[in-house]
């Protein structure tokens, strides 16, 4: 009698895979990528392609070198590449973007064990390192100008930098919402980022907890501190971080209460840095700090197993 396949239950598995989740994130990033090309020209695409290619190559190369199973096909390196690119100015030299990609994949992700094991967000951490190493090129903002391959035409400050200096010439809320302002590739258009966020919510890739807590805290604190609330919400990397980076699985808590705490923490640190710190923007730092606290948050917020009474 023929031998049967004898595996342990369950014998059915849901349709979702890591690859499909990452593909959904990539789809959700399409509006933001499109916006970056519209506002900063085709060089934006070049920066994105550069980051994605180097991320994939670093992942493949590192795993080859360490004789680890190859995980390039799970598409997580593509996501990291896109998000890192969206955190860079369009004028960044390609070699610097490439270096950032290597840092994100090799140092932040692979050295800690690969996908699911990194304690901090690869893109946010790489951005901080690039900011520290190349503060000049990392803050060389240009005014939006569509389809321009020569990006260094007109320099422009970001709304946050303008606000920090108290300078004139703040863009309108509508321009900021649409993305028609200076800044990184992906931090200018709140509309495009929100579209992606809605898609991720509908596809149940993320839950509302982190983005709502993060944005809500920034809004509330801005109001309390007498700041311009819409301007604070629409500017800087806030929207990008709230939707795509603070919802990263491996470096943020998995419990719903943990997600709320994480979001509130990110919001508080962001406003602290924005209003009282030396930097005009504090989103990356807030992410990194909360990433470090994640294991503790998770431990404190783990649901109590149903041993007896059910607390609603």
């Amino acid at each position, binding site marked *: *009698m*023929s*031998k*049967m*396949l*004898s*595996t*342990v*239950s*369950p*014998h*059915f*598995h*849901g349709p*979702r*895979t*890591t690859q*499909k*989740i990452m593909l959904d994130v990539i789809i959700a990033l399409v509006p933001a990528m499109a916006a970056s090309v519209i506002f900063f020209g085709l060089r934006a695409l070049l920066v994105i392609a550069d980051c994605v290619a180097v991320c994939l190559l670093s992942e493949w190369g590192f795993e080859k070198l360490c004789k680890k199973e190859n*995980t390039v096909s*799970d598409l*997580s390196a593509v996501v990291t590449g896109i998000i890192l690119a969206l955190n860079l100015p369009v004028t960044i030299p390609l070699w610097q973007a490439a270096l950032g990609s290597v840092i994100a994949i090799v140092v932040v992700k692979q050295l800690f064990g*690969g*996908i*699911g*094991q990194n304690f901090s967000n690869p893109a946010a951490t790489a951005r901080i390192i690039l900011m520290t190493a190349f503060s000049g090129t990392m803050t060389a903002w240009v005014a939006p100008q569509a389809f321009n391959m020569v990006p260094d035409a007109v320099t422009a400050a970001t709304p946050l930098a303008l606000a920090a200096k108290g300078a004139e010439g703040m863009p309108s809320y509508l321009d900021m919402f649409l993305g028609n302002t200076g800044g990184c590739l992906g931090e200018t258009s709140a509309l495009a980022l929100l579209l992606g966020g809605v898609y991720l919510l509908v596809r149940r890739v993320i839950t509302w907890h982190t983005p709502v807590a993060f944005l809500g805290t920034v809004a509330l604190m801005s109001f309390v501190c007498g700041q311009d609330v819409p301007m604070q919400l629409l500017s800087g990397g806030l929207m990008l971080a709230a939707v795509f980076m603070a919802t990263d*699985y*491996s470096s943020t808590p*998995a*419990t*719903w209460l943990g997600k709320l705490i994480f979001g509130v923490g990110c919001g508080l640190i962001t406003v602290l840095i924005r209003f009282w710190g030396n930097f005009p923007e504090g989103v990356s730092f807030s992410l990194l700090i909360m990433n470090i606290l994640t294991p503790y948050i998770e431990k404190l917020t*783990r*649901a*109590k*197993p*149903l*041993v*007896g*009474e*059910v607390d*609603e």
Partner: protein
Amino acid sequence: MKLKGIHVPHLKHTATSAPVRLPVPKTVSIPMSMHIGRPAKPVVKRGDAVKVGQLIAEADGYISAPIHSGVSGKVQKIDEMTTAMGAKVPVIVIETDGLQELSETVQPPDVHDVESFVAAVKQSGSVGLGGAGFPTFVKFSINGDLSVLDAVVINAAECEPYITSDTRTLVDRAEDVFAGIDLIKKYLKVKRFVIGIEGNKPEAIAKVQALAAKTDGVEVQVLPPMYPQGGEKVLVYNTLGRMIPQGGLPLDVGVVVINVTTLAFIAKYIETGMPLVEKCVTVDGSAVKEPKNVIVPIGTSIADLLEAAGGCKSEPAKVLYGGPMMGIAVPDLSAPVLKNTNAIIAMDAKEAQPPKTTPCINCGACLSHCPLRLDPRAIARAYKQDDAEALQTLCVDLCMECGCCSYVCPAKRHLVQTNKLAKGKLRAFQAKQKAAKEGGK
């Protein structure tokens, strides 16, 4: 608030298929362990003639169950076999004569009070037919203290994909279910009955609702189709709002849970005296040519059953006792239908192929879908680190192995398997601790 769960494909293709009785196979192999507890002890020997309904093995000890023959014929041999769970147990192989002669011992039992009722349930050989196989009489043995029991939950959830044998019980013999309710009312003095049924069985719901309207104290609760709605803890909580405590029984919250087919069987036994010798089994799965419900004698081999039920479209690559969520894969097709077999699911190579496991991405889907709010991610970590104390804190012993975590895991990790291993590790740790404590005294 209800307990969490998952949506699985229903695949109830056979819901409208009234069970057909298959021809008696040439031989049946009846293992002595078809229940939780000690294996039964054979009371027949090689060469003995047996008839339908005759006792062939008696219960050994308290938690055990007697076994009867479902065929007439001759005992070919008493052998040893390896069950799908890997245990070695004695098996009585009967060569059938096809006459299906009825044993004289099949007489309606004398039932007049609670003791004789429980004794009759014990003699019937009844075990939990929903799949667990726990001897039924033990649930009713509450040592005369009937006050602890105030509600009976009748489990008709049937939340596993494919399976419809309980649905057919309700559609075809709801009267037996209500006769069972009357018996429990009479002898165990229970006033409240709740029939928990998933909303995807309209025909069965209509049938029970009509009968419930004519019966005092029976409430039909139509539950949303959600796996594992029929898990004991889940069902008791979702119907009555009572949570069975860790390591406890439904009786700890005043409840007895009984599968709907088990209840119908008990009523029939008390009416006719025919013990548990045959089963209605759903035959389905991607390899099966004609999915249907069939009635076969217990001990019929899966090979005989599949053939008599219309054969296979393709060579089955994996065959299950029970549904795809908690079913047990059989080692080969000679495995027999057991008392608690409610379905035989034969999967083709494509359906049977387990998906590739990838690294955990920490998405948290497992913990957000666990009905008992466990954290399979943390349990896997603690298991890997050999940390039994952490396993205790994480309450891995609560795990009912329903499989929700593994089902939703995008990385297709073997979370239930790890939970099972972790439960074993925790048990060993607790036994050692207990021994150390007692030794220290």
